[in-house]
């Protein structure tokens, strides 16, 4: 997570101002969010996916206690696969995890990207 800053800085700093043509650029927070939408798309997607993948703390700190309330999807998947040895359920959980992330990513792309700017 700590690498977001150089990426955001790098993408923002070379963003051409021509994108904001026609708007009042100086001090306009809407334009700034608009100019940052590419790096924001990247960082939000990576951060969201990364949040789903962090189970190390749960392994070390709580092991899903108290009574399953700190169990996240990936930890539940591990429990089903390696403790309860339910391979079918863990495979289904993997598919569900990927589908959730895919839906979020596609929605993010749809919302952030404009119509004409993707391809030549």
């Amino acid at each position, binding site marked *: 997570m700590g690498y977001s800053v150089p990426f955001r800085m*790098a993408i923002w700093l*070379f963003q*051409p101002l021509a994108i904001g043509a026609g708007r009042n650029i100086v001090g306009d927070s809407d334009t700034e969010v608009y100019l940052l939408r590419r790096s924001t798309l990247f960082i939000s997607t990576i951060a969201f*996916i990364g949040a789903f993948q962090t189970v190390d703390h749960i392994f070390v700190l709580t092991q899903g206690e108290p009574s399953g309330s700190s169990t996240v999807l990936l930890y539940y998947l591990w429990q089903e696969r390696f403790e309860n040895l339910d391979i079918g359920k863990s495979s289904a959980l993997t598919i569900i995890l990927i589908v959730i992330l895919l839906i979020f990513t596609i929605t993010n792309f749809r919302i952030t990207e404009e119509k004409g700017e993707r*391809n030549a």
Partner: protein
Amino acid sequence: MLKKAFSLAPFGRYYFNTIFIVILIFAVQLVTITIGTFAFVNYKFVGHRVVLFFILLQLMIPPSALLIPNFATIWFLGLFNTKLAIVLPYFGSAFGLFLMRQAFLGVPKSLVHAGIIDGCSWWQLLIHIYLPPSIPILIAFGLSSITWHWNDFLWPLIIINSPKARPLTAGLVRFTQLGEIGARWSLLAAATIIVIAPLFFAFLIFQKRFIQCFINSGIK
């Protein structure tokens, strides 16, 4: 204490392996991500959205789920216990492609059209028009890729059996399991310093240059 730590495990060999692995991965990733994103950004082909999300799928799969299938593939290819086995799964980086895509989309389309009118071939478009504004992003990606693969622990531990191909992280673990260490934490700390020192000093030396590079390229 450092001399003692050096004498108990072949850290020179581990250094060479780690540097080789990191440089090889970064070099191949540079080529694959720039050419791959160029294909996505410059051309509009049937199913480009589907292929893009298929590539992003690599990010979404939990990496621990890929360990055993990767191991089976490497075993089937007969590459077990080689440096090529460590680098092979990382050659195509979806993270890098995504990052480069956001960078290439920031190049104004008018510039690209001007290049096409001037008669640029595809590789000239890539080198002269798409790449120059994206250099700071490539540097940022390089930073994250190099540190990540320098510190990558689980995959090399699984796939490597002997010191001839073992990188520093796995070497440190094997070092801690040696019988001669006992509970001497000073030896362990010395070994850890051996592992993290190059990145640490590289960061200290280059941090100002990296920030300068980001800042200077933004002011056109």
